[in-house]
């Protein structure tokens, strides 16, 4: 079999196995750790009968193994279970976790892809320039600014942006609430500030990593060799550096998109954006376990997928694997 194909298939298998183990961990943490959900959901005054009825209705009285397979089986059919909040109330209004996650996931993807579309090209250009003009004023300025941006908590950047762009100079709005029927341009306008925050956060990371990758590459012997034999700078970059640079650059992009997954939780909280991060934080404070688990699985899945993608692109773009001896 083609070595590239084989390695890619191996990685895919590994990714699926990881996802499987992660789903086990997410569902089993409940068993391993103490925590009285019925009390947390129903309140301290709940009688033993209501507690038992609640546990029966959400399936907490079944064995962990049975519950795990029911959960995973449901998810494979698109059913993430039912929220505790509705199982606790005796009124017949059922709230399915899948219905809660679905629209919010789309909102989050909208926000994250807007941020990625701006941040990825910008950071690659800036990072390469910083690497090529190493130790210049431009490089140092970029370095200091990006170090500050990395070190700041996301909410600090977010509130500074609100302070200047929404309060002092009211250009944008600080509440990024979007509703289903909103026109596309209004949506874009509403998410300007959260997008900008996310861009700042990952831009700094990506730029520093791109810069380091390029500098690393330019220091390798074969680049010096091509320079010594008289190749033009353009030739060096296009023919010698870039083929080997794809792998680290794509890795940088995928790692930072995975980082977006985490950044989005906080940014959504600041701007009260109706995304999946907000949903998860609300569910954690209400201790609504099915919702928490569903959100965690979606987040972990995105994270694993992005890392898998980075691995595969690294393999596929590796000249040594593509042209085996």
């Amino acid at each position, binding site marked *: 079999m083609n070595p590239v194909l084989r390695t890619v298939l191996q990685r895919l298998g590994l990714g699926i196995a*990881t996802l499987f*183990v*992660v789903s086990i*961990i*997410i569902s089993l*943490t*409940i068993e391993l*750790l*103490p*925590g009285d959900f019925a009390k*947390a959901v129903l309140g301290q005054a709940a009688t033993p009968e209501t507690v038992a009825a609640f546990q029966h209705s959400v399936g907490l009285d079944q064995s962990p193994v049975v519950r795990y397979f029911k959960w995973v089986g449901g998810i494979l059919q698109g059913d993430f279970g039912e929220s505790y909040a509705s199982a606790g109330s005796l009124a017949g209004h059922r709230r399915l976790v899948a219905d809660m996650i679905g629209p919010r996931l789309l909102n989050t993807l909208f926000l994250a892809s807007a941020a990625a579309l701006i941040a990825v090209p910008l950071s690659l250009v800036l990072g390469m320039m910083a690497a090529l003009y*190493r130790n210049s004023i431009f490089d140092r300025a970029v370095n200091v600014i990006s*170090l*500050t941006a*990395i*070190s*700041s*908590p*996301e*909410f*600090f950047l977010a*509130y*500074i942006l*609100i*302070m200047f762009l*929404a*309060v*002092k100079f009211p250009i944008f709005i*600080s509440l990024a609430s979007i509703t289903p029927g909103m026109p596309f341009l209004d949506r874009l306008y509403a998410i300007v500030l959260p997008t900008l925050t996310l861009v700042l956060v990952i831009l700094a990371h990506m730029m520093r990593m791109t810069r*380091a990758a390029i*500098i690393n590459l330019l220091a390798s012997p074969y680049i010096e060799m091509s320079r010594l034999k008289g190749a033009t700078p353009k030739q060096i970059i296009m023919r010698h550096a870039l083929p080997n640079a794809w792998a680290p650059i794509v890795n940088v992009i995928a790692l930072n998109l*995975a980082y977006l*997954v*985490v950044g989005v*939780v*906080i940014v959504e*909280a*600041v701007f009260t954006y109706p995304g999946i991060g907000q949903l*998860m*934080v609300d*569910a*954690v*404070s209400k*201790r*609504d*376990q099915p919702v*928490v*688990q569903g*959100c*965690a699985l979606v*987040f*972990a899945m995105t*994270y*694993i997928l992005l*890392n898998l993608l980075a691995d595969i692109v690294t393999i596929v773009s590796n000249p040594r694997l593509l042209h085996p001896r």
Partner: protein
Amino acid sequence: MTENAQSPHNAMLVAPIRRRSKMTRLWRALRKAPPSAWFGLIVIVVYIFTAIFAPLLAPYSETELIGGAFEPWGGKFILGTDQLGRDMLSRMIYGARNTVGIAFLTAILSFVLGGALGLTAAISGRWIDQLLSRSVDVLMSIPPLIFALVLLSIVGSSVPNLIIIMAVLDSTRVFRLSRSVAQGVVVMDYVEAARLRGEKLPWIMRREILPNIMPPLVAEFGLRFCFVFLTISALSFLGLGIQPPTADWGSMVRDNAALITYGDITPLLPAGAIALLTVSVNLVVDWFLHKTSGLRE
């Protein structure tokens, strides 16, 4: 190290004064440090001082209601009061103790745990290494903040829970680093010699391996501290970390965030305090890495 190596007899003769020469070496290194490192060090020292002497420095207690809600700056309350009428300045000062202290404890715990397991994996090899490494791989395939949220939703938010959860999640990173740097040392002849003369695992760890992998670990400690500090602040900001009435910078931002829409910068102060400390630690770590590894970019 280098000075002793250059003049071995000198170090032998003046053994009692070695301590002083260490101090002078440190001072010499500091004098040559770039302004960025100096800035970082001074900020860190100020933070530590504030954290230790918080009760003496703060004009009021951290939890006492002493005025109206959201009083403006100046007068009796230098930085005004928060949403319940507690003195902002006092809470900022106590925040240095609570937020930084908790993050510091977590980072230490994470280091002890991750370092010990990493060294064990590197020294023992075989199935222990495989088992530990694969478990860490799985734990690292879930984003830490998300994993922390899942665990906190189960055990509930309290300071001990927060410290343990963050330390365990963060120790995976320490494990990876300490394992990979220790692997380079484990194959050395002197480790083999120690093993052959029958030394036990803890002794080999402490006497043979640890001294040789210290510099990267110290630098990593700074970075891990920053990461833990930012994550705990983020959790507190989300209302799921350090719980009221404890003064904590993350939750102070959240509680006073409403002020920002009136153009008041009070909520930015605790957030800025977090950012300033992380920047400073990063600057010092950068300098330290340059010094110890001769790392040239």
